[in-house]
């Protein structure tokens, strides 16, 4: 019987009892629940990581202008800017997260991890992590499995969808996955990995989904960059054994509770927040199709 990823306490207990690393039960789960083979899983993960790295490189190399024009080669500008605010590594991290997400906004190929709206966060963080620490691909793939286990729990106890839980559910979950993967890859203990997840969620709680004109562009692209930064800041805190105080399972519950009570105008409907600002509405008028037949209230089609 494989572990079903109901909560973090159970995941840790399972690993300690069986004396296996954190990624092992995720592998067992996929084999038992989805009838997959270990070989197929590793090759699927390698394909995902390859697509992630390709997305980063594509976004930094090719023309990236979205149909609306709101996304316009931002990642390249950040990457090439002569002054680094903190360090060249930080500048690369931010520009890579932007790059992969810009590829998503411009109809390029990405990995929805966990969702398309958050598809820049794992690529930006893992690409940079591998480069800085010289990690083998296999190590990163194990980190991806740990990230998948984190997402499986969040999906069950809260949500991964912006339309259900707001932006915290998408970029927040991706940042939590990334943070856990970073600490795992740097040799952190189970407690340190889960603490990184808890701290990340604490930083991302409450974010609403308020996309301008309903498009996956503003503020989604810059939020992928900030989420990548938070994943790293949380990992730095967690590795030093600084406690999140509120246990990770309770942080996930808080995310679910906030999502459940969030008004629907903040859940991907483009009715509130940035979407409802004066400029947001002006852009919406310009970008959205106006030549549309509106059926009268009573009449049904056909």
């Amino acid at each position, binding site marked *: 019987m494989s572990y079903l990823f109901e909560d973090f306490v159970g995941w840790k207990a399972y690993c300690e009892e069986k004396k296996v690393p954190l990624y092992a039960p995720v592998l067992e789960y996929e084999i038992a*629940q989805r009838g997959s083979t270990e070989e197929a899983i590793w090759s699927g993960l390698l394909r*995902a990581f390859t697509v992630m790295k390709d997305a980063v490189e594509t976004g930094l190399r090719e023309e990236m202008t979205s*149909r609306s024009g709101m996304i316009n080669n931002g990642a390249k500008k950040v990457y090439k800017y002569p002054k680094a605010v903190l360090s060249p590594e930080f500048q690369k991290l931010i520009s890579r997260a932007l790059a992969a997400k810009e590829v998503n906004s411009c109809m390029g190929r990405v*990995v929805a991890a966990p969702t398309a*709206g958050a598809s820049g966060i794992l690529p930006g963080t893992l690409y940079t992590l591998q480069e800085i620490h010289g990690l083998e691909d296999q190590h990163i793939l194990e980190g991806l499995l740990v990230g998948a286990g984190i997402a499986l729990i969040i999906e069950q106890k809260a949500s991964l969808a912006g*339309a259900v839980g707001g932006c915290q559910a998408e970029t927040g979950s991706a940042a939590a996955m990334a943070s856990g993967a970073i600490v795992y890859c740097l040799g952190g203990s189970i407690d340190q990995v889960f603490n990184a997840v808890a701290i990340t969620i604490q930083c991302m709680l409450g974010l609403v989904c308020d996309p301008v004109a*309903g498009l996956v562009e503003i503020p989604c692209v810059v939020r992928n960059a900030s989420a990548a930064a938070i994943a790293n800041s949380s990992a730095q805190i967690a590795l030093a054994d600084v406690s999140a105080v509120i246990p990770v399972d309770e942080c996930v519950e808080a995310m679910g509770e906030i999502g459940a009570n969030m008004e629907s105008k903040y859940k991907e409907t483009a009715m509130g927040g940035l979407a409802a600002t004066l400029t947001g509405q002006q852009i919406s008028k310009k970008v959205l*199709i106006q030549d549309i037949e509106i059926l009268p209230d009573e009449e049904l089609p056909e």
Partner: protein
Amino acid sequence: MANKSSVFDMIGPVMIGPSSSHTAGVVRIGRAAIRVLGGIPEEATVTFYNSFARTYEGHGSDRAILGGLMDMKTDDANIKQAFEIAKEKGLKYSFKSIGNASVYHPNTVKLNLVKGDRKVEVLGESLGGGLINISTIDGFNADFSAQAHTLIIKADDTSGAIAFIASVIAQEKTNIATMSVSRKGKNDKACHVIEMDSGLQAITIEYLKSLPWISELIYIPDIDL
């Protein structure tokens, strides 16, 4: 779908952006529809309803539907060039927007497709996360997800038809996941929609097609393969 989520729902799917409901799901609706039609259409009239009506261009759903209609998969990088490729292939297309269609799901697309003498109308709903529901085919209720292998049979509304079809499928040891039957009027034809865990052999499909009381049979293998 009592299936547990996969690791590759969390780290995946690999897809063309920007949105699983506005691109990936729409591509899959197109892929299902051409299997109903029996090939890539020569003409496609695409109507985007409700939430899709205003946002389809910004999300690239127009390219996504054309990509699906040309049998591109959800991760095919050519989707971005779907307009140009459609021109090369001689696929004529047009787009329409209709809002406030309250009987339809918020993200609905209607496809009127023509290939030679054959014309079909397919109504598809994009449910989020790339999941879809094909709600009607030529006005009949279909309601299938295209995740499994699907058999659609239009037949005379005679007694014993359901049991007979089920027994033929059982010969292949194929497990039926869902089965529904609907009809327009009392003496009209019945439409059977059967979703199966595994595929059928060509010989079984030919046998069913040969039966005089079956007027039309459409077999849609898993659209993601």
